[in-house]
């Protein structure tokens, strides 16, 4: 007898996993609604509370624009399908995936593709709120697309951490608590004021925080094309990914071995 099964290829495997994850997204509001609300909330509150700051510190763009990337990165840093993955582990569905002939790497990569789509959509939504608040991109539509793309890459790079926790622990509680990891990145940076206005120690820490460069790159898109700033932003994403992705894929390999 012959089976109907065949290896469909790596791209097909990734698309299959991503397709399932994206199909489930609308049914799992908890995966994105809190982040969406938090992003918009932080954007509005920060502008309302600190809107007069440019009168006291040297900020070369309006504070609405200055805060827009902050609101988005607060929303998307740590946003991932890691919680869904840990439920798959707990419920046995990961076993079903591992029993199929698909690539093991595709299991994680497919979820990350879905993350990129989710983060991009969420970023775009907060950008639209920014437009309502008067934010303008002198770089035009292409600038908006680069802005959203950079946010998505940052979200993807950070997602490696919750995935690593999900795969190492198989514990939903540990994954739910992994958002705490985002705090040092989100707060020890130029979220509220430029480095020049910070205490020396905080400015020194911010200089080592990759998010600082991502924020600078994103903010640069409001005033024009600045290859150096965008390059540094991509460098910041790459540095974070260089740490998080080996952790995530290493955890996947370990989980497959332990299984």
């Amino acid at each position: 007898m012959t089976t109907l099964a065949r290896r469909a290829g790596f791209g097909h495997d990734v698309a299959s996993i991503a397709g399932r994850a994206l199909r489930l997204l609308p049914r799992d509001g908890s995966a994105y609604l809190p982040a969406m609300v938090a992003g918009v909330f932080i954007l509005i509150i920060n502008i309302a509370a600190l809107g007069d700051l440019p009168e006291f510190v040297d900020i070369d763009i309006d504070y609405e624009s200055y805060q827009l990337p902050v609101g988005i990165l607060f929303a998307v840093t740590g946003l991932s399908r890691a919680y869904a993955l840990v439920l798959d582990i707990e419920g046995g569905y990961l076993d079903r995936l591992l029993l199929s002939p698909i690539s093991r790497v595709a299991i994680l990569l497919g979820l990350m593709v879905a993350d990129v789509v989710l983060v991009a959509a969420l970023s775009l939504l907060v950008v639209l709120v920014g437009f309502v608040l008067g934010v303008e991109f002198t770089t035009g539509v292409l600038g908006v697309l680069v802005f959203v793309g950079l946010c998505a890459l940052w979200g993807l790079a950070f997602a490696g951490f919750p995935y690593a926790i999900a795969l190492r622990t198989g514990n939903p509680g540990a994954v739910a608590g992994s958002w705490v990891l985002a705090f040092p990145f989100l707060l020890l940076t130029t979220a509220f004021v430029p480095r020049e206005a910070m205490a020396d120690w905080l400015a020194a820490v911010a200089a080592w925080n990759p998010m600082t460069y991502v924020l600078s790159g994103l903010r640069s898109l409001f005033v024009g094309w600045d290859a150096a700033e965008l390059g540094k932003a991509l460098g910041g994403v790459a540095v974070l990914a260089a740490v998080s992705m080996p952790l995530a894929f290493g955890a996947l390999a370990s989980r497959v071995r332990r299984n």
Partner: protein
Amino acid sequence: MAAGEIYGFLGPNGAGKSTCVRMLCTLLAPTSGSATVAGHNVLSDPGQVRLRIGVALQDAALDPKLTGRELLAVQARLYGMSKRQAAIRLGELAGLVDMTAIDRRIETYSGGMRRRLDLAAALIHDPEVVFMDEPTTGLDPDSRVRVWDELRRLNRDAGVTVFLTTQYLEEADELADRVGIICRGELVAEGAPTDLKRRIGTDVIIVAVDGDAHAAAEAVRPVAGVESVEVHGDELTVAVQDGSRSVSPVAVALDTNGATVTDLRLRSPSLDDVYLELTGARLAVEGS
């Protein structure tokens, strides 16, 4: 195992049945030894093994947020099947899946519906070898019969080889062409159920006594027609050639020797009797 047979793997909880299945279906690497499934080594060629097997593990491995149809579609896609192939297979598996609930989310399914959907997911790609790890544990009688019917149909019509682990002796007796009995990680017996049961005798008289069971056993041993007597606690298992002829002499021998009989039953040997003889313990669990 020969291709096209249904093999029943029997053993109590903790005997190693599930571990064995997980190794054979490539989920777990063996610490030593090797195994070949559908002509491919599980260690050196796991990808080819996965293409050829379908697996229903002990706990239904489903995504509760998907509908039954979506789950089977995703499963078909993972195996590189086209939408058309998946639709045809879904039609073929309609006897197993509750089609009236196929578009409902799995989280609304009963335990039996989930188990049968899990089985359908294991079969969607028409595998050559199917591993079923206690597929009917916890199922209601109706669902159990439906699973049995589907397994028989698969084996008979499609020639699918089935490796079935179970705690239910009745299930192994009903379905399996051959049975392997595992105890503490060791295979202690293997053969067709009828051959294994023949080891015990044609009939079995089970006697419960109040008092010295070993003395009662000695009283029964010389009775004509008695082939063997096993003592387990206060119970004797008396294997005889012809139960209807032997039951009276056995009862008389017990009475003559002063044994107090609290229960006496005549029946055909079961796989549980085989298990009892081999391991000294009964395997039968609730529901078998």
